[in-house]
């Protein structure tokens, strides 16, 4: 996992200090759990992403 992270960051032009890699690996695992939670609620093609709103943020 740490090698994968190192490679992915390198692809983005980022050289992470070695001590960051295990912390990032743990964070990625946590992100996976959160993503799984989101799968449990309805996110389908009928829910447009908010980013496409002309007025991002508060709705009137």
């Amino acid at each position, binding site marked *: 996992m740490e090698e994968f992270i190192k490679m992915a*960051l390198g692809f983005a032009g980022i050289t992470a200090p070695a*001590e*960051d890699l295990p912390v*990032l690996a743990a964070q990625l695992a946590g992100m996976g759990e959160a*993503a799984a939670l989101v799968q449990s609620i309805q996110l389908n093609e009928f829910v*447009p992403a*908010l980013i496409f709103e002309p007025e991002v943020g508060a709705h009137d």
Partner: protein
Amino acid sequence: MTELYYQTIGELAPKLQRKELSPVELTEAVLKRTEALNPKLNAYLTILEKEALQQARQAEQEIFSGHWRGPLHGIPIAVKDLFHTDGVKTTAGSAILRDFTPQENATVVQRLLDAGIVLTGKLNMHEFAFGVTNENPHFGDAHNPWDTNRITGGSSGGSAAAVAAGLSVASLGTDTGGSIRTPSSLCGVVGLKPTFGRVSKHGVVPLSWSLDHVGPIARSVEDVAILLEAIAGHDMKDPTSKKREIGSYRNALASGTRGLRAGVVRNYYIGAEPDVENNFREAIKSLETAGLHVSEVEIPELDAALFAEMIMISAEASAYHHESLAASPTAFGADVRILLEAGELISAVQYIKAQQARRLIQEGFRRVFDQFDVLLAPSVPLTATPIGVRQLQTGGMPIDVTMAFVQFAAPANLAGLPSLSVPTGLSAEGLPTGMQIIGKPFGEETVLRVGVEYEAMSPLQEKHPLG
């Protein structure tokens, strides 16, 4: 009589207007307090003593010659160090911007100066606003005035500490995942995150473009209303700013809350420390006696809030800092650097799904606001934690301090809703607790009405840290 440095704008303004008090005398009192306590609190990063006294003398001259500009004229105020200030260093709490001096004021700073404030300095913050503790490896941690071994909360921690301890009459902060409400709650002051688009962000170092909000921190709800009236309104320089009429926030405070309906979301804002929860329940009882109708409600969509918040904030912050992170990663503090690196690893799919979740969360709020005028929740689930503590054990379960703070704050950021944090009292350890009052889009008047009604009954009235 309350010391000058602990009086509110609402108390000071009439004295200044009637020339019973000079802005110079007031500014000297605040600067003296700052000189005495800043070494202990580290709330200020830059103190503008000479400039502030010069502005105070000018305000005195104007007022004494009959040109009183309004309730902020001659009031000493310091702002978070991410608001651009013309000719004054603006570090955003970072080493990267340590020597950055803007040549223009942020729109909100200019509006406060136009209203006649005396700018006393720039306040400590979590590096680039990307954190909730205000532990800062570059400029030192901000310390909570109620217990200086504990965090102020962040990212606007210097602002909340300065206001709580009398080092600034009021302040401005920013809130992307609770950065106004969290330190306000932990330091026992009032903080408002207004509706997205209500207050300009021009000239504010960004954290996350679609979640950032600018708002006031003060010692009373009335002061928050006064500051909001001064800074709110459309700004051509901020494309997210809305052309909506500015409310009469201060006048609205007298309207009371009788007949208003408040919801308590029972499926989300749960798991608070017992003292936080007890003070929240007592606050609800007080509001019910004042005529507020309170009942429980569910918003199942909020289960996705923490995911959406963390994905979006990380991805957007990493986009903003990408070049700096590539060029000199070790120029960032370790905690912020790791968050930015994590943001580089978020996929486009995750970002889009977070945006979808955000849409659902907005719909969830829209649904319940058909039945309620405001929603009530603890501002944060914890009191101020000791500096350096990242995890707590509650009921045998480890709790990540940052995630706990962000969890309660995130829904109002994601939906762009106004949310006011008011103090609800102290814990058994003598640490402040807070309640947030969340309103409909552009419903600032209503949240302030509920806030001021509760404030009159709050057990924290007239209590200050550090004497």
